[in-house]
């Protein structure tokens, strides 16, 4: 185990252990926060009861659709913007300012347009994720070494062959960073939307517990969401690291 992993593990153990101790000794009242072990027990209880299955289907379904739209749409838009320098000059400042917009504030408007259900959630989450993917795609395509494109020309590659055989593989590490961000933003969009105004989903279940002072269930669900996002991001990070180790830092 490398020193960074050891330090990270010790920090996590310290925080979780400290919180456990503070909650068990009553230094932190259970009306404020519950012990981590209780959160885990809550997750197990909630998941094994099956009462959340419908909510999870809605949330994960919406996340899957939104993340796919954000990743694929962001890549296509990023590629088109990359190919058009004029469009790039016009759009670049807007992309930079995009995340200053409070997207969740548009959710009620999206409900008016798309109705109740998964539609407005998917639109909101896609809106949140897509620009991260556009920015990552632009960054990746900008950094494809010119000599590789010249090599593609020497081999007589067509524009589509150049895209799929050279540009995309060369830009993959940047694209994976975009995938990570687009997924996280899509997840935030869906859960935040459900939390604010929805009749189903994990976000709604958290809001319902919150409104009813049910800390036991609320913290369990929050830990469940954190755990899920960490697992997905760690998996992508693992691929990314393997790729960087294989390719070097070029």
């Amino acid at each position, binding site marked *: 185990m490398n020193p960074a992993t050891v330090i990270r593990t010790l920090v996590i153990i310290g925080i979780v252990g400290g919180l456990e101790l503070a909650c068990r000794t009553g230094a932190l009242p259970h009306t404020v926060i519950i012990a981590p072990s209780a959160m885990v027990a809550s997750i197990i209880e909630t998941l094994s009861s099956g009462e959340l299955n419908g909510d999870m289907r809605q949330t994960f379904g919406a996340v899957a659709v939104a993340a796919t739209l954000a990743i694929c749409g962001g890549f296509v838009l990023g590629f088109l913007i990359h190919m058009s320098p004029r469009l790039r000059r016009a759009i670049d400042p807007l992309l930079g300012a995009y995340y200053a917009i409070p997207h969740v504030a548009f959710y009620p408007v999206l409900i008016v347009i798309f109705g109740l259900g998964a539609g407005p959630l998917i639109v909101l989450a896609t809106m949140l994720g897509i620009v991260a993917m556009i920015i990552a795609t632009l960054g990746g395509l900008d950094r494809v*070494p010119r000599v590789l494109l010249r090599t593609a020309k020497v081999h007589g590659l067509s524009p589509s062959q150049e895209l799929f055989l050279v540009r995309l593989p060369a830009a993959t590490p940047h694209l994976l960073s975009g995938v990570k961000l687009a997924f996280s933003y899509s997840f935030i969009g869906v859960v935040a939307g459900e939390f604010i105004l929805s009749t189903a989903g994990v976000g709604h279940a958290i809001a319902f517990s919150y409104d009813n002072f049910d800390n036991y269930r609320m913290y369990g669900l929050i830990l469940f969401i954190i755990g899920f996002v960490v697992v997905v991001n760690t998996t992508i990070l693992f691929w990314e690291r393997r790729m960087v180790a294989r390719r070097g830092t070029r």
Partner: protein
Amino acid sequence: MTDDKTAVAAELVGVTRVYPARAGHAPVHALGPLDLKLHRGEFFSVVGPSGCGKSTLLDVLSGLAPPTEGKAFFEGRPLNDTVPDGIGVVFQEDASFPWLTVFDNVAFGLRRKGMEAGEVRRRVDYAINFMGLKAFATAYPAQLSGGMRQRVCIARTLVMEPRLILLDEPFGALDQQTRLLMGDELLRLWRETGATVMLITHALDEANLLSDRIGVMSARPGIFIDVVETGWSRDRDSTLAADARFGLVSNRLWSMLRSESMRAMGQQTGERAAEAAE
């Protein structure tokens, strides 16, 4: 491949190359007008001061960039902004694909042409062996040294069996000892394939050692101020550097290049001063 010195492999006729004006910068007349005939099977090197248009010359001769004026021909056919089959190019920068193994890098061009897998393996195995990379066939470029990566790029070119090989300072990033050894390997490759080779280099000794003829270019816009015939035998190697005649050729090259290099330095200093003034 014939060793007929009268046959022309590639030719430039009245070629110029002018880079158009960019924001805040005047057009740059990089090259020419110049004429050049590369004889089939010869080893021709181009030396010249920094920024004299050597790489531009390679771009035009390979079909990577069209001439502004004049015409470029490969085996009698005009080049039109594409690199035809039969021309291979090795760049100064590392052009190996980092996501592919050495084997897959070398096989890249053959697979694109739709060659049958058995033939791809035969040709790639030969090229990898020839370049001394057999033990690294499954390695990725990041696991190799700079010199080995450059050998991967040469193998990727060699495997396509080009009749004209253009090398743009391929050993520029390597240390002196590795350069000498790579030079010997390049001569071996040239002798075995019978291809015509044009090497762009800023190293006079390298050009002297490797070449049948050396084109000496002026400061920008680059034209040939002389073409020196070395008269070395075809089976030469790096031990030639100890020959007294080797020193004479190097001195002749430097006497021509010294004033051009000073002129090029003056040009670059003037341009930087103008940019700073803006």
